[in-house]
């Protein structure tokens, strides 16, 4: 047996163990991480407590419940009383998730017999009930988070069989009978944006992303063209040259970045390195590694973007914990944490913050049978990444608790 396969999960610390161990990390953020890690299961009573007229439910296009794609409507996600979002998947009870049940008529997170915390379901924006003039439900054109408009340019990734091993886009697209979103039309985007902006105080940013598109004279040229078209369609609604927005995309050349910045209202750029180690990157993200010449080239492209977008407007996301995947990942959490934080610091030296999402092995991904690291690991990763950002004076306003809500480390930046 490969040595890496022998990684043993010791008895895991409980939520209260970890909360006691790290008094400088807010309990609500630790809870968020644990809920994301373990997932949630909505009781029938909780689902009966949903009000489709008020609450945001998952669209059939994006919906999964208990790891199976279905058109069953479940809450989009949860909100804690400090305004922290928990972007979380519904999983089956055999994975020992937190339960979401109604307690005194209010949704609450339950673990065992204990009521851990009351939560809220996200409220849906008004445009979710409307249809574009071309007949498409607006919620299928642009999805919403509590304060953000999210646009997925393309549900296809050209990496195909070489897709990242934690990602399930490629396999999902091969699944027969799965509802597929129609191709994004700029007229529809523009119409939905106009409608969304009519709701005062509802949104404060755009997040735009999609699968990598390799076509073009230079690799990613076509992807850049499409994002420019999309951003210009959005920009028609604003009186200012720039508007709060984030693009999460492939690693572009300086020429492509310059074109993107100069011709659109885009304010920030995120290029995800996914795992902060060249070897692990080559194994886990083979398509990315091959596209432009490996980890170092991706890294240098992210760093160069600071010259164009400015410090505090460029970042790199990682799938926190995937560095411990078997069989070629780090074999101990100590080793993984040390390497990840060292590389995050090397990015920060150039003004690029790294932040993470909690890795949850997706049911349709090659890593489906793997296990996320411990809660203790994630808390140390959260604290470590935030300390690096603070030490180098880097802000992440474009991807914080309000404008994204999916990065525990940028949640901590709220008090900085």
């Amino acid at each position, binding site marked *: 047996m490969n040595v890496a396969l022998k990684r043993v999960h010791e008895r895991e610390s409980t939520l209260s163990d970890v909360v006691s161990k790290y008094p400088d990390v807010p309990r609500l953020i630790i809870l968020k991480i644990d809920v994301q890690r373990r997932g949630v299961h909505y009781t029938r009573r909780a689902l009966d407590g949903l009000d489709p007229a008020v609450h945001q439910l998952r669209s059939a296009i994006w919906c999964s419940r208990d790891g199976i794609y279905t058109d069953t409507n479940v809450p989009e996600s949860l909100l804690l009383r400090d305004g922290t979002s928990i972007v979380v998947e519904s999983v089956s009870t055999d994975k020992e998730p937190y339960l979401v049940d109604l307690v005194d008529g209010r949704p609450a997170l339950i673990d065992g017999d204990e009521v851990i915390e009351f939560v809220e379901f996200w409220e849906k924006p008004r445009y979710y009930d409307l249809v574009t003039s071309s007949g498409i439900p607006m919620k299928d054109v642009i999805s919403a988070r509590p304060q953000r408009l999210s646009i997925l340019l393309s549900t296809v990734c050209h990496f195909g069989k070489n897709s990242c091993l934690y990602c399930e886009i490629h396999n999902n697209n091969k699944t027969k009978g799965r509802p597929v979103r129609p191709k994004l039309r700029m007229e529809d985007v523009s119409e939905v944006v106009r409608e969304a902006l009519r709701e005062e*105080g509802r949104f404060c940013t755009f997040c735009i992303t999609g699968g990598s598109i390799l076509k073009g004279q230079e690799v990613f040229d076509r992807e850049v063209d499409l994002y420019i078209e999309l951003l210009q369609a959005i920009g028609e609604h604003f009186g200012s040259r720039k508007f709060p927005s984030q693009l999460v995309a492939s690693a572009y050349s300086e020429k492509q970045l310059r074109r993107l910045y100069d011709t659109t209202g885009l304010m920030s750029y995120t290029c995800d390195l996914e795992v902060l180690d060249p070897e692990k990157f080559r194994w886990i993200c083979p398509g990315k590694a091959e596209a432009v010449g490996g980890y170092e080239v991706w890294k240098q492209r992210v760093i160069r973007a600071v010259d164009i977008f400015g410090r505090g407007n460029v970042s790199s996301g990682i799938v926190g914990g995937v560095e411990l995947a078997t069989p070629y990942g780090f074999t101990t959490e100590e080793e993984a944490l040390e390497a990840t934080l060292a590389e995050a610091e090397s990015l920060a030296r150039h003004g690029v913050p790294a932040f993470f999402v909690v890795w949850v092995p997706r049911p349709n991904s090659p890593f489906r049978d793997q296990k996320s690291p411990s809660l203790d690991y994630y808390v140390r990763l959260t604290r470590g990444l935030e300390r690096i950002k603070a030490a180098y004076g880097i802000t992440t306003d474009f991807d914080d608790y*309000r404008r994204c809500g999916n990065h525990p480390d940028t949640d901590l930046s709220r008090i900085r």
Partner: protein
Amino acid sequence: MNIQLSEELISLFNDATAFKALATIDGESTPNVVTGRLFRISEEGNILYLEHLESSRTNHNLVGALWFERQVSIAVQGRRGENYQIKGRPVKVHITGTLFQKYYIESRAILGEVDLSGVWVIEPTEVIDESPLKRQAEEEQARPFFRHLDRFCKSDN
């Protein structure tokens, strides 16, 4: 333990001309006081504080207070000399949703070109009547040693 605010206090919070100040502390106990902000009272009797700046020291301190269970203090002074201090715990912040949007629109109607970061829910835990004459009477009754001797003298001494 949270307490009910009196009708007089609720009126003071709703009175735009009454003076109000919010004091918070950061993780090092450094105090921070702001005045001239908008407060409301919720249907449940909690104090709502409308914070317009995401990056303000007050906002940071309120987040810290909610996360690490620190108290805040609010001073309220009316035109007729009413003077109260309310201690409380921030228990929730609305950063989105119906209530947030209501106060976003209301804030802009009152203050003009402002944004809204959050509607903080502060549960009152203690109300102290800080009217100077009342506080003096209480002290003289409960702590008679805390006076200078000349105040005890005969008027013809």
